[in-house]
């Protein structure tokens, strides 16, 4: 849900801009990298089943470096929530409520997210369990109704812009799939940790296939060039669908998008709060919650002046930051645990 909730609207447009008719292939590449990433996180987590990254980073790197790294992750999660909040307000401002100030949406969402964070991770997971089937059902309905209008010739010629363009286009979805890195902080909370790998791979494959279908649907209906020109190509597909008297199904996309974003922001907000509380050994999370809420409300409008800025950041800057925190650092930490195997054995 964390991966796909925001990806469904943005990924088709971003990937088609670079890889044109072969954009769907870049999603499949991201899926494969996502599985590798999950394996990395799983094997790292298995070495410290009762600890989060912030705790074992201090064991592996020393107290100071460990804290610096942990703080880096807090900033990373904050960046994700700020980006998501900005995408959320841009989406509503562009498509539904142009006159409403962004702060109103962001404050409303943060109130709901704060409520969820106070109640704990289990509540967030339960909400996700409730939303997920509705989410998948809505997507399935939209895709099924779009099938008859798909023109598969829009997927030709295969790899017209070359393999490199597809690899380049896959960086953004890889960054999206890599957001499963949240597991390094949630590993100790999972009841049956041994099932993480199996269930995780299943989840990533399901999300990847769904995202591939969404990308194929937008490409085959609107063509690669037009898809690549749009911010929210999948919303436009929902607007397009007309089956006998069934039409104006964009409400389904809005439902999917808003509910998915609530869960995603709540998870990020939870991680930001709990990591900071643990890092500074605070007694109460009240002030951290409030401070982070304010940051999450102010930063989306302070850092990005327009959706053009968000698009530029997502395409050109975000992949390198994301891949550092999602692949590089967990990879290096795993390498370190292998090297220091004997030393960390007692924490198993």
């Amino acid at each position, binding site marked *: 849900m964390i991966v796909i909730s925001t990806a469904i609207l943005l990924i088709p447009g971003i990937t088609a801009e670079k890889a044109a008719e072969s954009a769907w292939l870049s999603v499949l590449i991201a899926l494969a990298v996502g599985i590798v990433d999950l394996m990395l996180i799983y094997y790292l987590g298995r070495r410290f089943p009762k600890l989060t990254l912030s705790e074992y980073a201090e064991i592996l790197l020393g107290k100071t470096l460990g804290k610096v790294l942990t703080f880096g992750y807090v900033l990373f999660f904050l960046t994700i929530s700020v980006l998501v909040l900005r995408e959320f307000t841009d989406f509503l401002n*562009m*498509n*539904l*409520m*142009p*006159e*409403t*100030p962004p702060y*109103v949406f962001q404050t*409303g969402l943060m*109130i*709901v997210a704060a*409520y969820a964070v*106070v109640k704990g991770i289990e509540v967030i997971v339960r909400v996700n369990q409730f939303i997920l089937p509705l989410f998948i059902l809505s997507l399935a309905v939209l895709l099924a109704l779009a099938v008859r209008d798909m023109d598969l*010739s829009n997927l*030709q*010629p295969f790899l*017209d812009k070359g393999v490199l363009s597809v690899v380049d286009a896959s960086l953004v979805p890889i960054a999206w799939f890599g957001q499963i890195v949240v597991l390094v902080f949630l590993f100790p909370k999972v009841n049956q940790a041994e099932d993480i790998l199996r269930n995780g791979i299943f989840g990533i494959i399901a999300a990847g296939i769904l995202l591939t279908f969404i990308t194929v649907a937008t490409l085959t*209906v*609107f*063509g690669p*060039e*037009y898809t690549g*020109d749009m911010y929210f190509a999948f919303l*436009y597909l929902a*607007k*397009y669908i*007309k089956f006998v008297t069934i039409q104006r199904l964009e409400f389904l996309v809005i439902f999917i998008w808003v509910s998915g974003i609530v869960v995603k922001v709540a998870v990020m907000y939870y991680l930001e709060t709990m990591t900071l509380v643990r890092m500074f050994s605070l007694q109460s999370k009240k002030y951290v919650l409030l401070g982070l809420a304010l940051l999450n409300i102010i930063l989306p409008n302070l850092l990005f002046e327009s959706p053009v800025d968000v698009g530029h950041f997502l395409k050109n800057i975000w992949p390198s930051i994301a891949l550092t925190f999602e692949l590089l650092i967990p990879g290096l930490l795993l390498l370190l645990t292998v090297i220091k195997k004997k030393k960390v054995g007692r924490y198993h």
Partner: protein
Amino acid sequence: MNKLLKKLRFKNIGIFSILLSLLLFCSGCWSNKEVETLAFVTLSSYDYTQINGQDVWTAATLILKPQGSQGQDEGKKSSLSGNAEQLVTGQGPTMQDAIRNYSAKLSTVPFYGYTTGTIIGEEAAKKKAPEMIEHRARFPQTRPRDIFLVAKGEAKEILKTRGTMNQLFSAEVSQFIDLKATNTGKSYGMYFYKFVSWLTSNDRDAVLPQIKIIPLESDNKESEANPKTEGSIIEGLGVFQAGHLVGWLDEEQTIGFLLLTQKINKGPISIPVQKDGTMFNYFLSSSTYKVKPVVSNEEISYQVTIQTKGEIDENNGLRLTKEDIEQLEPVISEKLKKIATATVKQAKTYKADFLGFSEKLHHKDPKTFHALGSEWREAFVNAQVEINVKAKIISTGRLKEELEVNPPNE
């Protein structure tokens, strides 16, 4: 006790916050609009010209009259009558300014969420189509299935003609595009998303259905109190090259376009054919097409195969035995080939590949296509096109060979 109070207080704050959020979002926040404050736009048009070197845009729109005012205007007439829409126009140096100027004439806010589509004036289509389309594509209320047409002459004049039947003009136009344009062979059902997709494509050109003013036949004119002498008709296509209108396709060339680019399965398209001086009608009910690009010795050519199925009802005295049908089919095939060839010739004259032949080449042989670079339209013009048509007669209606009418007395 203290703990319980704290818990309750937090619970109340939580519930209050959620209720407040619900109240804000469900009422639409700042974007809240009452239906009475909206002007429902049903069909828009844009014209462009230059006066003394200055851009002049004319935006015109049909707005649905509120039911109360329809009653005042028309007494007990049906609410769907042609006058249920009001024409509002505005002019300005930019498109947006022209829109703002017609909006200023209204006490309500124009709402485009239920617009059926847009008509582009001839001059605007020739000179400013890409800019206009981009403007529409950026506008959030534009829907992918909005219809798009190009007017012969000024688009605003088309809106003035209103409907000829007892319904909204906008509904009349969109119904024709949805149900009849392609199926009758009169035009082509084009929608905004498809037009943009073709315009932005790097291997094909686009077309739009043509709408034009026609004088009304005397039996179709309205009462003397309200004389209506002109109506509008959707017929033929406007051809775009690199996003600009470059010419028109007549009725027969439009059928050629459909034969060469569409899988027709909801005919019938009526095609008059002549055999030995006798005219009869071929009712084309379905057709398929295949375009095969062939590249040999750096020469590009296209082999086109069209297969049609149809019916003959109006035989004008021709006998329809099995042998007769076998003789008629090549005649029909020849006629269809002539129509398709004329369309290809017209496409080459306009240097506009709206038939999608270059797109086929791009799909089949990307290397050759990329080697052409920006010269792909030239390559299309120079390419040999070989058309083969196989027409079948699959029905002769409810009669056998001939209706034997009693001959005159000797």
